[in-house]
């Protein structure tokens, strides 16, 4: 049996992975050390003070009470160290870098659907460029799932009622597992796939192949199909607010509360418009709950998103600066174009 068939440590393929592994190593050393020490002491004491005659009593001796204080305070301090390190790492895992590329994911029993901003869609396979932060915005069409990339050391539950985001930045090209980590019914263990990490040029080529127009442009068509444009016009004449420039701004509501117009807010505005009424508008927007599929919803949201920001929703992939990539062997041109079944991308 080859050693590669029996790994003890998962592949490290993201910027946070070394940090997670470092904390893991620290925990193993400290906890393992203290445990082994305790077992050793127990073992020695149990042998040394073995009962030799049937009626032997213990010696009349109480260890000093200060010991008690020592093993309340010392473990507590060690625990606090773990707490701080763990939280620091968590912040790193949660804070999405500014320039992240957006990808959308939908979980449904029992598959993962991914959509790139340029409109490429794929199922159970995800193509991403190496060395670029990727932000995944995701929702579920049915039960709770959990999108898990062991090689990147990140996972996040995927909920049916709101968007969640996660991000990672791959550090090497190759093919890594995608698992569903939250039990979701019959084919839970079959809700798996591969993430294909490619050189940015190859990713660009791959994106160019067979897209049906960008997500946002598909969303624009839906915006007309669902007659959103009858109320949301580009000037202030419609019955609904102008959506140009909305994304990322702070919206004042009729009860004077404020919210930030992010994906979740836009999603809620479409599915449950009555929940948060924009100040100065009548609650006339109908709910689209049950009429818009999760896929269409994504497109609408990404259209409204694109209205709101200067940058277009087209993914700004440049040629990589070579320091971003750890891969030694660049791919042959065209190797990244799907369907890509072989492991040619693994350096």
């Amino acid at each position, binding site marked *: 049996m080859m050693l590669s068939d029996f790994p003890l440590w998962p592949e490290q393929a993201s910027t946070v992975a070394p940090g997670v592994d470092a904390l*893991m190593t620290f925990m193993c050393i400290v906890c393992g050390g203290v445990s082994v020490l305790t077992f050793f002491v127990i073992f020695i004491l149990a042998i040394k003070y073995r009962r030799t005659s049937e009626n032997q009593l213990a010696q009349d001796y109480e260890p000093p009470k200060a010991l008690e204080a020592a093993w309340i305070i010392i473990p507590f301090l060690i625990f606090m160290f773990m707490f701080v390190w763990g939280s620091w790492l*968590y912040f790193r895992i949660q804070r999405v870098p500014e320039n992240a590329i957006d990808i959308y994911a939908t979980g449904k029993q029992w598959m993962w659907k991914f959509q790139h901003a340029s409109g490429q869609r794929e199922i159970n396979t995800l193509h991403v460029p190496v060395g670029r932060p990727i932000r995944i915005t995701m929702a579920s069409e049915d039960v709770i799932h959990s999108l898990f990339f*062991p090689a990147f050391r*990140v996972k996040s539950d995927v*909920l049916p009622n709101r968007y969640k985001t996660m991000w990672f930045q791959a550090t090497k090209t190759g093919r890594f597992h995608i698992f569903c980590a939250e039990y*979701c019914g019959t084919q839970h263990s079959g809700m798996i796939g591969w993430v294909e990490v490619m050189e940015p040029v190859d990713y660009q080529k791959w994106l160019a192949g067979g897209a049906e127009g960008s997500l946002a442009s598909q969303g624009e068509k839906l915006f007309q199909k669902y007659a959103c444009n009858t109320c949301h016009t580009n000037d202030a004449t419609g019955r609904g607010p102008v959506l140009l420039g909305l994304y990322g701004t702070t919206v004042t509501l009729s009860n004077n509360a404020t919210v930030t117009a992010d994906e979740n807010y836009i999603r809620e505005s479409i599915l449950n418009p009555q929940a948060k009424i924009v100040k100065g508008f009548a609650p006339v927007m109908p709910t689209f709950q049950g009429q818009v599929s999760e896929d269409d919803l994504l497109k609408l949201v990404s259209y409204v998103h694109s209205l709101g920001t200067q940058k277009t929703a087209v993914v700004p992939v440049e040629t990589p600066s070579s320091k971003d990539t750890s891969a030694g062997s660049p791919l042959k041109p065209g190797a990244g174009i799907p369907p890509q079944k072989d492991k040619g991308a693994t350096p």
Partner: protein
Amino acid sequence: MSSLTLHDVRFVEPEATRNYITQDYGALSWLFTKDHKRIAILYLISITALFILGGFFAVVMRIELLTPEGDLLTSDTYNKFFTLHGIIMIFFFLIPSIPAVLGNFLLPLMLGAKDLAFPKINLLSWYLYIIAAVMGLYIIITGGVDTGWTFYTPFSTQFSNTHVFGVTFAAFIVGFSSILTGLNFLVTIHRMRAPGLTWFRLPLFVWAMYATSIVQLLATPVLAITLVMLMFERVVHVGIFDPALGGDPLLFQHMFWFYSHPAVYIMILPAMGVASEVVAAFTRKKIFGYQFVAYSSLAIAFLGFLVWAHHMFVAGISVYSAMIFSFLSYFVAVPSAIKVFNWTATLYRASVSLMTPMLYILGFIGLFTIGGVTGLFLAAIGLDVHVTDTYFVVAHFHYVMVGGAVMAYMAGLHYWWPKITGRMYPEWWARLAALLVFAGFNLTFFPQFVLGYLGMPRRYHAYAPEFQVLNVMSTAGASVLAVGYALPLCYLLWSLWYGRPAGPNPWGAVGLEWTTASPPPMENFHETPVVTWDAYDYPAMMKAMGETQNV
């Protein structure tokens, strides 16, 4: 005085001709008994049966996991098996195990009382348990359930087409059995202590049962409410957890873990109580830091209510709430650490005997320590993101629940077996079994830590081929473990007929339960004992007993 050995330490009493077993014969005298000892036996038989059933599901799952492909069972069957395994082991075996069997039998004996405060309620709680168990069995026969023991919404409310309603109803009922036991114990400990038995003379097992009872009484109703909401939602679809109707599926997780985290302490606190008793008896020494150990039980019971969201670090809670729950989880680990160190310190200059119960408890301390420290890994939120919902968590909770709670239950069963039955079990067989359990356990569950870190998610029927080697190790361990558990079943039954008569105090231990006959008479003590010594105070108790005997 010189002729008095520890084994003679007891109240003088006429040789009991009748004990609780021989008092009455016939099934009805058992089924309608109000005697706490007989009810304990009823529980012992019922939870053993369910343990075997739960174990059966586990063994079949482990066999399935020998190969990466899902070849032995269908996915649906596999999902039902892990669900039933979890529900049975948690709600029908582990939660009642130590409290309802050992606690029921021993609490009045340790307190010098004739029975629990409410004997009829005690019987009622067993009937509730049985009704729930029969419902559960009926459901298993008619198709089972596949939601996982955690019943997460919206899967359980809108998507599963198995018997979710029936099973949650059964769990709801068995919850009441647990509430009633807790209530009964609380009142008993407050009201029925023998003269002189002040709070700080109580054996630590009683303290542990006290803390457990508080948790049972306060947390279980939340489970009941949550399950009712779930049933309601499933049947009339009111929208509490359904996003389409404005509900929130995460609300369920909050409510579920608000019970189920404290529930893990319902399982482990009694185990810690047993550990304290056994360590004291087999070192003939007062537990070091008795008061700290007693208070740490209460601290655990209290803090255990404040950490539920550590099961939800990737489920959708804010960064700051995650930090708060991480901090509190570290906090709750402190009292557990105190106990481990105090048991260790007790061994110093003690008189250590390595009989079977002590072997189990040393195993308990080791495995519980590993389970506890891996909890620290999970509480480090940045690390939890990677290991949550993987086999790492599976290994963690098996180390605490099986390595901890079940080992302690086995220890307690062996330790008090002579008291319960009046017979000794065969020592060498028992030691062999204890070693097999320990070895098999580690072989089964240690590889799962590695598997989890490698990324194998839990509740997977089929898995990636590179995980196979570790899974095979785990299954091999499970077969050793199965033998380890099957042995006691055989030799304990054997000992009922062929075991050596035990006498009142085979271990030379102190504690009121050892001052009466084995098996105890129906009324436990012929005269109410008067306590003038602290718990585990060997010299004082020998002296006090010596005086009584010389009268």
